[in-house]
């Protein structure tokens, strides 16, 4: 049984998806989704443990030997990302039950859980596969289910947001598949490890830089790097709360993983950073993302939208780490994948609680909520502290590594800009805190604390974001090992 875990990790949620659709009852569909998410958490943790003790796990799908058949290949990097995705899935799904009942009409709830499971298995599939075409297929599975889940939002603007995301996402996916096609034309293989071996021989051909460019643009579109982020704010704002919490913590993170995988494992550090000078593109863009998007967030009056812009800024931190091209930098990027998933998950879930009781996340509607919903707003503050990067939170750990990586290269300017980004996070978090705690509420509106079924998952993430901020030894160790693995070019 355990040798099939790499396949079962993806396939069990995938087969539970049609089961949820067929059951056609909210409760049964929820049970299927719950089982799928917790199975994924168990399987990914078991795999990470095994990868840490035994090294790379390779699984030949259908019994066909790797370069010819499809290979599932787990090393420290993707096992770490898989655990991140599965953790968020397992925490969001109990939250979804209460939140979704309020926000989605009952006849659509089973389909919501179906889409949720499909998205989870798609994201896990991208993570574990060792085959580039498989990446594209799973990317489409996760994106299409994401579009349908965003479209379930209450606000009618969710539909235009979905359409925008659909167009942009499809452009991104097309670019990725064009890049993959070019690589296939030149090498005749789709297996990642095999590609890495065969690509150096044909690097001189112009096709490979073109493939590289298509892949870079396609993936950065999917991960919403600064000028290609336009789909993200609306999608996050109008999606149902549980969907926003899940997507914000997983979908873009998996794309960051893809970026790492393509640049370091397939094309190799020397090509990506030496010949193509990737850092010259990524570093300015990620710095602009951090500063400009934080600035936009400061002036935003819808808190979900504020957090969405903050997400684009935070993606800037991840890509900035990668653009250093050093072990410390990539470690910072990887760590921030996990850390940001925890804090942004917590923040969006706190906003889901507000949505549940208040019915709106406009800043003006949140006056006095600090008194009326103390636990919800405390969770928001907890997540916010992490976003700012206060010591003892996970945000601090990421920033610490990032600043170290900048100083290692003597890049004081970048280190300073990272600090400024943190200060800007302080401003936009404070803006919400000020309204919630220091403004008088409309006394005639009766608002109670959010139900426990929403608060407990939210607080699990808040506590986790402090836990891994106080004791970061495990996550930092895994991330450092993974970064070393990536920079060695091996997989």
């Amino acid at each position: 049984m355990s040798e099939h875990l790499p396949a079962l990790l993806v396939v069990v949620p995938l087969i539970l998806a049609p089961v949820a659709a067929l059951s056609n009852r909210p409760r049964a569909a929820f049970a299927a989704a719950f089982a799928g998410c917790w199975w994924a958490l168990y399987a990914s943790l078991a795999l990470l443990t095994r990868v840490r003790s035994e090294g790379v796990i390779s699984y030949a799908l259908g019994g066909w030997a790797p370069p010819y058949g499809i290979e599932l290949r787990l090393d420290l990097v993707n096992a770490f990302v898989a655990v991140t995705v599965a953790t968020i899935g397992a925490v969001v799904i109990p939250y979804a039950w209460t939140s979704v009942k309020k926000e989605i009409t009952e006849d659509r709830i089973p389909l919501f859980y179906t889409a949720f499971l499909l998205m989870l298995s798609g994201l896990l599939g991208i993570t574990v596969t060792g085959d580039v075409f498989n990446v594209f297929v799973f990317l489409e599975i996760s994106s299409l289910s994401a579009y349908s889940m965003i479209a379930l939002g209450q606000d009618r603007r969710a539909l235009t947001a979905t359409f925008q995301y659909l167009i942009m996402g499809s452009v991104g996916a097309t670019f990725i598949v064009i890049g993959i096609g070019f690589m296939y034309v030149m090498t005749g293989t789709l297996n990642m490890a095999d590609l890495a071996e065969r690509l150096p021989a044909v690097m001189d051909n112009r096709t490979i830089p073109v493939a590289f460019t298509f892949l870079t643009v396609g993936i950065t579109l999917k991960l919403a790097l600064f000028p290609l982020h336009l789909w993200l704010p609306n999608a996050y704002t109008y999606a149902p709360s549980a969907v926003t919490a899940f997507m914000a913590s997983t979908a873009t993170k998996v794309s960051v993983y893809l970026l790492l995988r393509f640049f370091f494992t397939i094309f190799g550090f020397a090509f990506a950073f030496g010949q193509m000078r990737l850092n010259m593109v990524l570093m300015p863009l990620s710095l602009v993302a951090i500063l400009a998007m934080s600035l936009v967030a400061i002036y935003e009056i819808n808190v979900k939208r504020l957090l969405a812009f903050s997400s684009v800024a935070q993606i800037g931190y991840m890509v900035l780490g990668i653009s250093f091209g050093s072990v410390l930098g990539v470690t910072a990027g990887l760590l921030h994948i996990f850390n940001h998933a925890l804090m942004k998950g917590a923040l969006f879930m706190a906003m889901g609680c507000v949505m549940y009781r208040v019915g709106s996340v406009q800043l003006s509607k949140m006056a006095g909520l600090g008194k009326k919903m103390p636990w919800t707003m405390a969770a928001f503050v907890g997540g916010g502290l992490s976003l700012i990067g206060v010591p003892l939170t996970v945000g601090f750990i990421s920033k610490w590594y990032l600043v170290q990586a900048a100083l290692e290269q003597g890049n004081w300017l970048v280190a300073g800009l990272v600090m400024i980004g943190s200060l800007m996070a302080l401003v936009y978090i404070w803006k919400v805190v000020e309204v919630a705690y220091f403004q008088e509420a409309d006394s005639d509106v009766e608002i109670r604390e959010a139900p426990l079924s929403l608060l407990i998952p939210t607080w699990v993430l808040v506590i986790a974001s402090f836990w891994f901020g106080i004791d970061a030894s495990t996550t930092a160790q895994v991330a450092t090992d993974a970064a070393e693995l990536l920079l060695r070019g091996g997989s």
Partner: protein
Amino acid sequence: MDDRVILRVGAKILIPFIMIFGLYVHFHGDYGPGGGFQAGVIFAAAFVLYALIFGLGNAIQVLPPKAAYICAAMGVVIYLGVGFLGIILGGQFMDYSVLAYSYTGQHYGIIGVELGVVTTVFGVMVALFYAFAGRRRVDS
């Protein structure tokens, strides 16, 4: 449509052949051009033709939207079920060679998997057609 005898008789003659051709494309998919997706579309085309000639109401009586929905989900279950069979019989996931001796196993496996594809594609195609055909015109 009651007076259009040629269309009605023509459709009645064509529909069984379209369905048979769909099955042919499915079962012959591992030797020649074709496969589950094409077969599913062809099979669905038979129902679309029926709906066009005999009206949406009759088509829905033959195949309720609910059935199309179930088809769409069942196909995925069939597909992955064949995959799980590989694990149960002691091979890898999607390993067809354990289903029967030598190449025969590969044939069984691919036909089983493609049957899942046929079912899903057929269900989705019909559901899409119902969704569009069921919309009322804006001007009426």
